[in-house]
């Protein structure tokens, strides 16, 4: 963990008004609020901790079984279990602030009003570097649809959050890959005021248990994550960066090494999140950050920023 890169690379990166000292974060839902991982590495050394999506009220989540292992991945249906915003502010956000971690708070709601209330509640809290707006979770108000599947709904949520958030706090819209054209959704949330895009959330899947001959998950469907879906995620980053090269992207999907992270940076991500691979090894986010710096140095980059989108052909006007 103390490997020193051959050359020093400027690893800082930017999301709107937010400058991150380093480009690797935890992925929402894979790190709780950082405290458990702090037993294994110094969470203040990461670019940021992206907290598990918090809702207005306490939520019990789905019944078990909630998870099935799949080749190079897992299927999960946790159902946004969480303590609700008040407990989150009092316990988790307070801990992150005291610890000195850079914190990106992920919020989720069942209606546009709920997102709006969450933004209002967080508006005057200290220690929030950015908001990640998880619009890729089921939309209760719209009978199970996902906000991020519908450009109008997606834009509506982002507009409501933007209007109720301090203009110096960037907001990132977290998108699902389960759409026909992700750049349309990206356009909608950018137009609605998103400062950046987080991509991608899990993709929907089903596993059948061949012993019971029933779905493995109590919820039947679950979100597939892990290295198995990495090329899909790199594709999403690629397409959004190609369409909107000036919009910063937080890329994620199966990143487990510095070279995995580099793929996302070269495809156009300004920073990356490490998610499911954290379950394999809680030190993964920090190791990815160290390895990414090494990989950039080995390729002659003196700055992470120079590598963002490097895989794309040069633009010709």
């Amino acid at each position, binding site marked *: 963990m103390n490997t020193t890169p051959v050359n020093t690379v400027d690893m800082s990166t930017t999301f709107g008004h937010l400058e991150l000292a380093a480009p690797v974060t935890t992925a929402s839902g894979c790190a*709780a609020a950082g405290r458990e991982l702090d037993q294994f590495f110094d969470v203040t050394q990461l670019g940021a901790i992206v907290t598990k999506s918090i809702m207005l009220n306490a939520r019990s989540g789905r*019944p*078990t079984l909630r*998870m099935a292992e799949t080749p190079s991945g897992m299927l999960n249906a*946790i159902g946004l279990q969480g303590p609700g915003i008040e407990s989150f502010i009092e316990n988790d956000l307070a801990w992150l602030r005291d610890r000195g971690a850079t914190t990106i708070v992920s919020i989720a709601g069942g209606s546009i009003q709920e997102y709006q209330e969450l933004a209002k509640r967080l508006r005057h809290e200290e220690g929030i570097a950015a908001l990640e707006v998880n619009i890729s979770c089921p939309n209760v108000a719209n009978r199970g649809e996902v906000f991020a599947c519908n450009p109008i709904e997606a834009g509506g949520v982002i507009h409501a959050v933007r209007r109720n958030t301090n203009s110096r706090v960037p907001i990132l819209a977290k998108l699902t890959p389960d759409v026909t054209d992700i750049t349309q959704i990206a356009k909608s949330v950018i137009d609605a005021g998103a400062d950046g895009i987080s991509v991608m959330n899990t993709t929907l899947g089903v596993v059948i248990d061949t012993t019971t001959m029933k779905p493995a998950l109590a919820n039947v469907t679950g979100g597939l994550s892990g290295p198995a879906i990495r090329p899909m995620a790199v594709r999403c980053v690629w397409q959004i960066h190609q369409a909107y090269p000036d919009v910063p992207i937080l890329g994620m999907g199966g990143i487990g090494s510095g070279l995995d992270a580099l793929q996302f940076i070269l495809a156009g991500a300004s920073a990356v999140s490490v998610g499911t691979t954290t379950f*394999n090894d809680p030190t993964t986010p920090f190791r990815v950050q160290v390895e990414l710096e090494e990989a950039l140095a080995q390729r002659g980059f003196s700055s992470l920023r120079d590598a963002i989108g490097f895989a794309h052909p040069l633009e010709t006007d």
Partner: protein
Amino acid sequence: MPSAVADPIRVEAEVLSVRRVGEYFVMAFAAPGIAERVSPGHFVAIAVGGDRSSMLLRRSFSIYRVDPSGSFGGTLEIVVGPKGAGTQWLVSRRPGDMVNLIAPLGRPFSLPVDPVACILVGGGYGAAPMFALAEQLRERGSHVDLVLGAATESRLFGLVEGRRAATTLTTTTEDGSDGVQGRVTDVLPDLIKQHDSQVIYGCGPMGMLQAIAGVASDHGIASQCAVEESMACGVGVCMTCVLPVIGNDGVTRMVRSCTEGPVFFGDQVRWSDVGTVPDDCLGAPTPTVVSAPLQGRGALPDEPAPRGPVSRGGVR
């Protein structure tokens, strides 16, 4: 919110030995820095399949024995019942191979303040933590009745060691191939009466734990159960291993068995509701959006059906 209290560390651990015991394998690892901090009930989470494995999730096991002063500077042993690809990979390791493990994890069994008589019940390889627990209880002056149960003789674990560690040993098998024919709960009422036992400790399949907790509560005594739930991370970040537990404030919450458990007081677990989210659970969905209850999850059989490679092997 409690976080993991065991202060776990992550190490590359050398495999020292793998030996077959009945239908199980006992594996020993060099685990410096871990052994001296392990209490009975703690568990270990092990990465399987090697560095380029397609199996991402750790397998968790009750810690069977530790020796802080071994010639390898601290050793740790587990009992593995190979069920899926991950546990089969694990038991095919050879001395000198390295595996990545994290321990100690979870909240261990708590010991009674006074040297009261205790009954320890291990189902199959769920017996793993009971020997060290028996030794610690006896050191404190407790009378310890150990009950080991399984479907058949080859799935009983630790008979010789059990005889040494406990004051008495009783075995039960469902097919009568060893000891009393029947289930562990068949012998508990008499044992409770004989020595006025005050606590039952259990580790094994969920159905067995539910039955033990029921017997304890029928007799007005305490029970502590180390539960088995499917886990992805073992360290408290994935939220997959939850079960409905009644808190000291009387409120039911879906709590993580990895960090708040794996040991729970038997009367605080809502055994019949495991596999569901009870309607009165904190944050439960409102009745209008509640999903249909799962069938057949409330009463698990004594021998759990294989749950595939993600089944939490030995942590029970």
